[in-house]
């Protein structure tokens, strides 16, 4: 089984990428034109303000952990969420800690958190030491985070990003110190651990919906609608593919086009034969 290194490996897959891009861009344009767009309620995100309120009442810090996320789309999304949380925190002068295992994320996080305090009108509250790079080693980072959660008795713990085996160490330690915990991850294998140990868990693509949900910015809301259209298209393709695969057999050129790298050539060959034969 090959993989999709280039569009030529399967032009149909490349076409689908183009379709998603188009669906997203058209809906962003519609949203910018002032069209009202609906986004469903996500309880985990509604609970963010509640968790911050609890930290403020207890006078204990809030921690934000982007996990082992390298700098990429997940890190940008996680930092967008953390920036929103920091703006809320700044209003009540609640202490915060952002702990990262990636040095590039650390450098960007410092800027993002400083910006958040500026935008909240409290640049005086920003402490550069509140954003910390602990270690790029997985379990050294895990022990550093667990130690800080225990020592500072945090009241709210937000975990957004990519997590591996260390996820349960964070979530269980947070649980032990009685923190309100909200986690959001695209790491499917870690979702059960977060569901078991956290108060709220944001699963899968809800993670990418977070910034749209929080900010209600037309660009982001439009993008969400485009994503939903793409999901409907994929769902239809899966159903259609299942029916066709049952009727035509798994080796049929249409099925190869839908689901296999290199499926474009047999499909085109089949079309040529059909046209030639007809």
């Amino acid at each position, binding site marked *: 089984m090959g993989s999709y290194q*280039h569009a030529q490996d399967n032009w149909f897959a490349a076409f689908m990428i183009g379709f*998603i891009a188009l669906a997203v861009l058209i809906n962003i344009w519609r949203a910018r034109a002032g069209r009202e767009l609906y986004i469903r309620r996500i309880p985990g995100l509604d609970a963010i303000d509640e968790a911050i309120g609890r930290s403020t009442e207890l006078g204990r810090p809030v921690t934000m952990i982007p996990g082992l996320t390298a700098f990429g789309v997940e890190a940008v999304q996680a930092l967008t969420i953390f920036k929103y949380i920091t703006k809320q925190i700044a209003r009540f002068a609640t202490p915060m800690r952002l702990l990262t295992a990636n040095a590039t994320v650390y450098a960007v996080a410092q800027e993002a958190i400083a910006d958040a305090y500026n935008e909240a009108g409290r640049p005086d509250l920003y402490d550069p030491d509140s954003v910390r*790079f602990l270690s*790029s080693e997985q379990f050294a980072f895990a022990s550093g985070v667990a130690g800080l959660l225990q020592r500072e008795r945090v009241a709210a713990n937000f975990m957004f990003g990519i997590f591996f085996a260390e996820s349960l160490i964070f979530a269980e330690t947070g649980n032990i110190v009685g923190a309100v915990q909200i986690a959001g991850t695209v790491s499917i294998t870690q979702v059960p651990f977060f569901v078991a*140990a956290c108060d709220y868990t944001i699963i899968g693509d809800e993670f*990418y919906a977070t910034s749209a949900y929080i900010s209600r910015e037309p660009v982001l809301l439009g993008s969400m609608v485009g994503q939903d259209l793409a999901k409907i298209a*994929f769902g239809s393709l899966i159903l259609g593919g299942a029916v066709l695969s049952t009727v035509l057999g798994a080796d049929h050129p249409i099925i190869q086009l839908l689901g296999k790298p290199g499926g474009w050539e047999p499909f085109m060959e089949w079309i040529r034969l059909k046209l030639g034969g007809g």
Partner: protein
Amino acid sequence: MFDTTQATWAAFWIIGAFVLFFALIPLLQTLPPRGRYMLIAVFTFISGLFFAAEFFLPVNEEGKNILTDPFQRLQGSLQVITALSLGLGTYGLIRLHLRNAVQRRPQWGYSLVLLIAFVTMAFFSVWNTLAEKELLGVQRTPLLERAFTLLFDYTLIQLDATMFSLIAFYIFSAAYRAFRIRSIEASILMFTAMVVMIGIVPLGKFISDSMGLPTTLTDEMRTNPFMLENILYNLRLPQIANWILNALNAPVQRAIEFGIGIGALAMAIRLWLSLERGIN
């Protein structure tokens, strides 16, 4: 060992990245915010276009197109940026703990331990690397061998293993909370988990055998799915566990993965076109 071409390329990229890094910072700071934003937006768009073009352009028999080689070199240059930021991260860490120790802040002892560990590990790691690559005339000595083994093999790896093994206990306490029967959903979860856990270990086979359920799937059973033996065979605990994993769990995971893929692609498009203003 590097060959000359590789070494020249490596030097070119490292020096180029340094020059770009140190030239861009003052340039960006002199620009007004709008100009800075425009510059970053244009740079991001061109970089994104390069990666997208490499994916979409047709390739030859070797699976390469005109942009594939520069693409791989560019990916290498990303490591230089990572190395630069690692320096920044380490500086931040040392500054924080040095300040903790010097100002005798609460729990400053931990900071002192960190600083001593950091310096010791860094010293022996650099020494070992120089000796390994035979650079600057550095040789292996018995002291280096002993210290390196003690610090890395007998300390670091063991500490890592200790942290990893903690997960076993955490899984136990998390599972206890998750499986407590408090609602219909929790009951279904508990029942399903029990079936899967028993089904995939030898106990599942033992229970199924004890109940007299068929142990093998014959050709006759394969051709007739509604045969009683076939139905009984599929009631074996290992078969049920497999069905739960393959017919229920895997499709749900794939559905989530589809959503994640689409979400990541949409986010990447927003970043590429500088429509995402989250951390700007």
